[in-house]
Structures are given as C-alpha cells and as structure tokens.
C-alpha cells in the first residue's frame, strides 16, 4: 500500500537495509547500555563492599543505630533548653569571626580570580603566550583542599583566623578563576577592539570593556562561593582556625554535659547557612535573570 510519493526510502536501497541497520544499531546500543549499567552497578556494589569492609562498623549493623547519637544530643539539649538563647548569644562573636573569614576570603579570592581569569582567557590575555601557565596555576590552586593550606599555615603563622582566610582565599581564587574565565569567553570582543582603537591601555580595556559585560555573572558566582566559603570557614575552625567551628568541635568532643552548647552552636550555624543560602540564591536569580 506504500504510496510512491511518500516513500523516500526506496531511493536509498530499500527499507530492509534501514531496518537491518537500525536493528544492528539498537542491538549494539542495548549492549553498550547494558554493559554500562552492569559496570556501574558492579562499581557501586563492589565499592560498597570494599568500603563496608574497611569501615570499623558494618553498614547494616550501623543503620539501626543511626539516630543514637543525635538522640543523645537532643535529649540533653531538651533538658537544658533554657540555656540555649544565652549560649547562642555567647557564641555570636565566634559566628561573626567565621563570617568574616568567609567574607574576607571571598573578596580576596574573587579579586585574584578576576585578574587570573582575564590573564587566562583567549582574546583578553595580557600575555597570550602565558595563558597555559595561568590556567595551570588556577588548576593547582583549585585542587589543593583548603584544609591542607590552613594546617600548613597554622604551623607557620599560629592558630587564628588568618591561616583560614588565606587558605580559603587561595582555593577560591582558583575555583572562581575557572568559572570567571568561562564567563569571559562569552564576552563580546567588539567593545574591546573599539577601546583598543582609541589607544586604551590593557587595564582600561579590561575595566571598561570586559567588566561591564560580565559583572552580573561574576557577582552571581561570587555569591555562590560566599555561601560555600561560610561552610569551609566553619570546617576550618575544626582544625584550629578559630571561629564557630572551633567551639563546635570542643563542645562536640567533650560530649555529655556540653550537648546544650552543641545544640546552640549547631542551631546558630545552621540558621546562618540557611539564611545566606536563601538570600544568595534569591539575589543570584535576580542577577542572572537581568542579563
């Protein structure tokens, strides 16, 4: 019943060939798909088994006790619930320090990231020959976890907020630098050429030609980073860099008797994180929506 005007397949050697080709393709695809699924499941399963094996407690034994510890903390916190507001006030300065570390390091890191990203974007770079070098520098900065730098710096500079600030700023510069340079790549080069034709210097071209184009995206990424850095800064407190993480660790570590402190600090930290998370995602949506 095939209508000649509609059947384009005949010209190409018949529907049979198409069918066989498709079936063959479907079979290989099914095979690869199946294989990938099997490999993935095998990886997950064997990974799970190895991790379970190398862990002190087994997964299945532990799952039932997962709430033991939280329950212990909560029950004590509930007993001493009257203490919580006072404790929260007591730990406020630590929280401020944590936030300061995050803010200062985000600012420092972002400034470095802007410069690094401009230096490592094709078409914008001051020294095009060195683009690769700056990219590798950013890769390495990004790859080093903050905790490594912080611990090493604590040895040299002593404990306190500064090692944490430097460590986070260092990592931030690498991480934001990569994102920024992706943004830069989408910037139009036309305004730059226009500025070049009037005899503008490199900083003028960057500041007047590129930054206005990319600023909203920069800002949006920087806000996201700030959010991440609040956590990072709290974590570094755990290894001796001051701030709220330090108090949390000591309270947690001491255990029974100070679980009210744990609860208070935890609540403080959690509320802060959620607060900044929500505000920043609100403003990020606004910023990117405007572009």
């Amino acid at each position, binding site marked *: 019943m095939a*209508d000649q005007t*509609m*059947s*384009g397949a005949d010209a190409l050697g018949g529907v049979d060939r*198409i069918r066989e*080709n498709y*079936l063959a393709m479907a079979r290989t695809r099914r095979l690869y798909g199946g294989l990938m699924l099997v490999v993935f499941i095998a990886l997950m399963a064997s990974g799970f088994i190895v991790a379970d094996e190398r862990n002190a407690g087994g997964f299945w034994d532990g799952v039932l006790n997962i709430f033991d510890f939280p329950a212990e903390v909560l029950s004590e916190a509930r007993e001493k619930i009257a203490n919580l507001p006072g404790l929260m006030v007591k730990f406020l300065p630590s929280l401020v320090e944590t936030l300061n570390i995050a803010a200062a390091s985000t600012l420092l890191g972002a400034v470095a990231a802007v410069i690094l990203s401009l230096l490592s974007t094709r078409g914008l770079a001051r020294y095009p020959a060195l683009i690769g070098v700056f990219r590798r520098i950013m890769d390495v900065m990004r790859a080093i976890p903050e905790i490594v730098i912080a611990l090493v710096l604590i040895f040299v500079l002593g404990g306190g907020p500064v090692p944490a600030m430097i460590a986070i700023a260092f990592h931030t510069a690498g991480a934001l630098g990569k994102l920024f340079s992706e943004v830069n790549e989408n910037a139009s080069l036309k305004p730059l050429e226009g500025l070049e034709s009037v005899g503008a210097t490199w900083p003028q071209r960057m500041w007047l030609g590129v930054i206005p184009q990319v600023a909203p995206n920069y800002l949006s990424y920087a806000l996201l980073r700030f959010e991440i850095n609040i956590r990072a800064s709290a974590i570094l407190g755990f290894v001796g860099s001051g701030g709220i993480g330090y108090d949390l660790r000591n309270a947690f570590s001491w255990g029974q008797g100070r679980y009210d402190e744990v609860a208070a600090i935890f609540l403080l930290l959690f509320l802060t994180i959620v607060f900044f998370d929500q505000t920043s995602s609100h403003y990020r949506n606004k910023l990117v929506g405007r572009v």
Partner: protein
Amino acid sequence: MLELDRLTKTFGGRTAVDAVTLTFPKPAMIGVIGASGAGKSTLLRMLNRLSDASSGRILHEGRDVTALRGAAKRAWQAECAMIFQQFNLVPRMDVVSNVLHGTLNKRSTLATLFNLYPESDIRRAIDILDRLGIAEHAAKRAEALSGGQQQRVAIARALMQDPAIILADEPIASLDPMNAQIVMDALRRIHDEDGRMVVCNLHTLDTARRYCDRVIGMRLGRVVFDGGPDELTTDAAREIYGADAGFSEAATSTAIDALDRPGPAAAVVAAV
C-alpha cells in the same frame, strides 16, 4: 460508534466546553474548527482522557469512556491516539524509540524501562515510518528533524498504537504550507486506507473543506456548526468565528495554492 453526551468542561468559573453532544456513527475524517479559545483542544483532551470531563459522558461502542480509571483508562488512551501541535516527541531520543512509545501500554513496564522492545515491534515501527516516507531518518534523534518530519514521527507513533481513533490537535499549525500538505495528506490516507476515525482540530477553513468528510464548528465551547464541507460557506464561517464582514478567509489559509493568489495573502502566509 462514538457518542458525546452533554460533555462539559469548566476551568474554575469558565466553561471551556459547554454540553457538547455529538454522534459519530462510523469512522470518518472529521474537522473541528473554531476561533482560539473555542474549546477545540479541551474537547480532544477529554476524548483522549488527558483531562477529565466536568460532566457529561463519552461513549465508545456503548462503553462509558469517561468512567474509566487506571489501567482501563490507559488502555482507552492506547486505542485513541493523540497528535499534538508541537509534536510532543522526546527530542533527545531517536525516531524509532519515539515511535515505539506507541506500544508502551501493551508492553511490560519493566522491559520498556530498559528500552527492551520486541524485535517485531521495531520492524513494524520502521514499516510505518517508511509508509510516511521518513524511514531513512529512523536512527536520528527526533530533535534533528524538521517540523514536518517530526509531525510525521508523531503520526507514526499514533499509528504504532494501532488505534481506532486518531485525534490531532492542530497538527499543521506549526508547519510551513509545504509540510502542512504532506502531513494532512498522510492523515487523510490513514483514514482512507486503514479506515480509522480521524478527528482533527484545524485553524483553517480551506484545509477543513479539502480534507474532511464532516466539519464541526465550535464557538465559546458550543457546537455552532455541524455539516459537510460543502455546507461551510463564508457566512457559516462568520458565524463560527464570530467575525464581522471584514473577515477574509485567505488571511488564515495555509494551503499551498494560497501562495499563488494575488493580494496581501502572500505576506500573511509567511507570518503564520
């Protein structure tokens, strides 16, 4: 035998379809026309059970379709295929897989989740594609096809369901005149050759006149015209569209020969 009995749909306070009563004694090619918002899409969606009727009934071979639930409802949907204005294909999947979606209702959930279709289905899918002249694109992703080709894939999916009824909601509204003709020809041919009932929402009078055996005109949710294509005069059209004397049919035409007509029509075609 398909019957609509005082079929009504209200959205909040608005009545989109208002007590539509229609009888289709035997499979035919039926065109539904009406201004934007007249309730054409809503009517078809109720027929396919994509939306539930607010009141009234749909009877197919004496069975109350409106009352079906769960698996029975899905079986009805499989029997009554739907073709959409925007094709509603899965763009990232290849053409044959899209066509095979027409068999989802018949095959076991588990097998289909892993893309395991019987080989016979695959063969049939390619036959259908061949019938519609697009077998050579079988292995491409749907998104890589032109609009007309995508709509033919959608028709192929509908045919794959082996339905008693094919519902088409403005199948040619996103297509250029060339592709519109190909798609309408295909639908007509399906009706002629397979004897399936085809219900087709249309924006344009001349398409309805040219392809349909019976035309239903809707306005504000009500059926205001029901007759053969020859009865569809300009006056009847004015009535359906609630238009004044300035109404010119050519302004909504998508038929290819409209291009050859003189006057401003050419410019309007490009804008459609």
